[in-house]
């Protein structure tokens, strides 16, 4: 459901441009998937935050891998919940991810 969004980031070596493309794609999907809008918006926010932090700034390959792991985990949480039928699970996942993003 959402994992294709981070697949491209992974294939592009965790590049800033790939995060930017992911952010724009997630936002673009909202219109066609209103039932997933909140999750897509969080993914767009998380990836855009990476772009804002690292555009034109150096980061090491190690840091890039850690950032990629973080976004992969976020997307996995959302993907697992939104692939199911439980509205409570979806809400819990949204809150879990929002809390995670708010804390970092």
């Amino acid at each position, binding site marked *: 459901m959402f994992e294709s969004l981070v697949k491209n980031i992974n294939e*592009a*070596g965790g*590049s*800033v*441009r790939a995060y*930017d493309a992911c952010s724009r794609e997630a936002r673009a999907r909202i219109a066609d998937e209103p039932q997933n809008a909140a999750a897509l918006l969080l993914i767009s926010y998380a990836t855009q935050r990476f772009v804002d932090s690292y555009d*034109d700034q*150096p980061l090491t*390959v190690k*840091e890039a891998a850690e950032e990629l792991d973080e976004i992969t985990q976020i997307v996995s949480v959302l993907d697992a919940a939104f692939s199911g039928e439980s509205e409570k699970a979806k809400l819990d996942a949204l809150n879990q991810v929002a809390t995670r993003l708010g804390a970092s």
Partner: protein
Amino acid sequence: MFSNTFPDRELISETVAKMLLEIDAVHFRSDQPFTFTSGLASPVYIDCRKLISYPRIRSALMDFAASVIVRRVGFEQFDAVAGGETAGIPFAAWLSDRLGLPMLYVRKKPKGFGRDAQIEGFLKDGARVLLVEDLTTDGGSKIKFGDAINRTGASVADTFAVFYYDIFPDTPQRLAEAGMRLHYLATWWDILKVCKNENRLPSKTIAEVESFLNDPVSWSASHGGISELLHKIPRSA
């Protein structure tokens, strides 16, 4: 205005390379490589933003820049100088002062609405603009900033950067296809030459850097970065 002297181009490049090394703007790290915006892993990174804190160096740099530009393009070929957000802005300000031209800057993203939503400052229709950034890697940001300026009815045929990576063979062609000529003061090859001549680095580091500069994509692939350069730069983004 600039000093109206025209130093030898090779001397300019060597001096700029020494300046960048003197202020520790050049970083070498092959055991923990850097990741570029493109996803390319690299053992070298240059921080041209540091230059703004060194008034004597930046003043000389801007004299060099004015010299290179008027010699290669002409004295009366521009109506304005535009800096690309963020690092290009101070250099555009100093260079516009040297060249006696109006200055403006281009945002990475539009703010507000209208055809000049990415532009701050006054830009008249048909203006010939010199686009300025601190450095050029693969030319992607210049193409985007140039597009933003061209959409206003002005035009960018020339772009200047203090530092040009000169490691991606297709960069000049990509910029040419976007209607831009690139002007710069120094490249990684100039840095490498100074480091070699002055024994500034261990031979192992020199070899590693040279290996990257000669084949950046292969070096990247074997150090955790991308193995293929993707130029998916949306022209209107």
